[in-house]
């Protein structure tokens, strides 16, 4: 399942589109065609980490993917970031090359949907930009609700400007969008897609379930649902203890300790990173393990999940 074909990409342009938001335009370093990608796909960039430690791998949604014109990403500079976004904002220059995975799609539009309801929070707008472009072209029924903090609403309204229309609404402030009323009004055959803060996506999923939406109609993208309390991961076979910082994922900590372990989406969806667990109280945050698998306590998805106990013992 692990697909480690990598691409060598050249930064064609990296303009700042708003305070803290940078658009990256990437083309193939050797000028060849890039692999195509459906809306919702992402690539994982390999970025040097600040202290010369192991490189960071961050996933970003493709806002646009054209084999000829290249890939477009929008990267927010986050303060809690592990350095990846800082590197993109502060160091990366047009002409630089970076390594990336081929596009993967874990957040595809559902082809049978009669209507697509897109709800984004903050920078969660990125897959929605790709969706909107595609749905407009396909003349499919859709609605986009972008939730932004009051001082950022203008930024997102500007990003959505190429697609004006009554089907697109920017809500300033978290409470400006009545999720329950919105979901209750959707016709049969609607699929909802959410991307944004975990709490927002959890709330939408809960409201949808309460209104009787089947789970198969509720889709979410979550990158970066990472932080939490620090803990220690004991790698039983390697015989080492790894400190997992609050702003670091278990997977990153294991990688930083020099242990290579497969991963793909780094968002708790694909199942590639699964690791055997032998002790501890895991806090599962993935969408891969079933309830039964969680209950048996034998596995953990280190790309998103953490620990409630001070120590977690992994059988690696």
């Amino acid at each position, binding site marked *: 399942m692990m697909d480690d074909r990598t691409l060598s990409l050249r930064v064609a342009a990296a303009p700042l589109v708003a305070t803290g938001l940078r658009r990256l335009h990437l083309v193939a370093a050797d000028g060849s065609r890039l692999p195509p990608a459906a809306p919702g796909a992402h690539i994982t960039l390999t970025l040097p980490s600040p202290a010369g430690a192991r490189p960071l791998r961050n996933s970003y949604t493709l806002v646009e993917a054209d084999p000829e014109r290249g890939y477009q990403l929008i990267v927010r500079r986050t303060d809690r970031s592990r350095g990846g976004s800082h590197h993109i904002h502060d160091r990366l220059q047009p002409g630089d090359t970076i390594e990336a995975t081929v596009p993967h799609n874990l957040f595809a539009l559902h082809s*049978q*949907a*009669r*209507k697509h309801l897109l709800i984004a929070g903050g920078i969660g707008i990125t897959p929605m930009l790709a969706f909107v472009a595609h749905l407009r072209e396909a003349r499919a029924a859709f609605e986009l609700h972008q939730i932004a903090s009051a001082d950022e609403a203008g930024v997102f309204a500007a990003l959505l400007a190429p697609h004006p229309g009554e089907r697109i609404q920017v809500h300033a402030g978290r409470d400006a969008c009545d999720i329950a009323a919105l*979901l*209750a*009004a*959707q*016709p*049969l*055959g*609607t699929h909802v897609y959410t991307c944004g803060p975990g709490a927002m996506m959890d709330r939408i999923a809960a409201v*949808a*379930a*309460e*209104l*009787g*939406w*089947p789970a*198969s*109609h509720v889709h979410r993208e979550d990158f970066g649902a990472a932080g939490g309390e620090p803990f220690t991961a004991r790698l039983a076979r390697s015989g080492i203890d790894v400190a997992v910082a609050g702003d670091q994922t278990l997977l990153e900590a294991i990688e930083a300790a020099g242990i290579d372990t497969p991963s793909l989406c780094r968002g708790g969806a694909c199942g590639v990173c699964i690791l055997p667990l032998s002790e501890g109280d895991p806090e599962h945050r993935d969408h891969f393990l079933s309830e039964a698998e969680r209950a048996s306590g034998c596995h953990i998805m280190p790309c998103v999940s953490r620990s409630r106990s001070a120590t977690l013992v992994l059988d690696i």
Partner: protein
Amino acid sequence: MTTGSFTSRPRYSPLTRFPSARAHLLVADHAGIAPHAFAETCSAADFPERWEVVAHARVLPQPLGGPGVHQFRSASHLLTLLGHRLNAETMGLRLYAVGSEPFVWDVARVGREAGMGREEMQLFAVGQPVRRVVCVHCRTINPEVTTTLVTCAGCGVTLSVRDHFSRMHNTWMGVQCDAEAPGELPEVEDLCA
């Protein structure tokens, strides 16, 4: 003989209420649904809104339904109004169908056309097996076939009814059975045999 090496005969489980739903609608092509159409834990009473076909229904049903039992004069009448109802519905509805196999798959089609997925519907076929058989030679649809051999109403060949059901088209496949040796026909059997 209707069984080949390959069978796509649908299987039906008795109805249970979907646990999390905003509303439930049960439709049947007859009144007085047999108790065996329901799983042990439930009965018709668990479905407060029911649409039924009753040949001599005298009261016209509400076009968009609502709680209570609504009676329709024919299955096609019910299916037409079901289409209108589903187009006006919002997410969270579950649809249940009980009746002949062609009827329940007609209901599934109307549901699908309104955007409902398999996880939002339950079907339960009751009664003697009746099949809608499509002739693969002339595409004529022969309704209400109850035997393993049938003369195609379109091209007149004798069709053997294969155990191949198309969920999309709600038809069973009928193939000329004496193509190789004209006139040599196997024995006709009842589909319920």
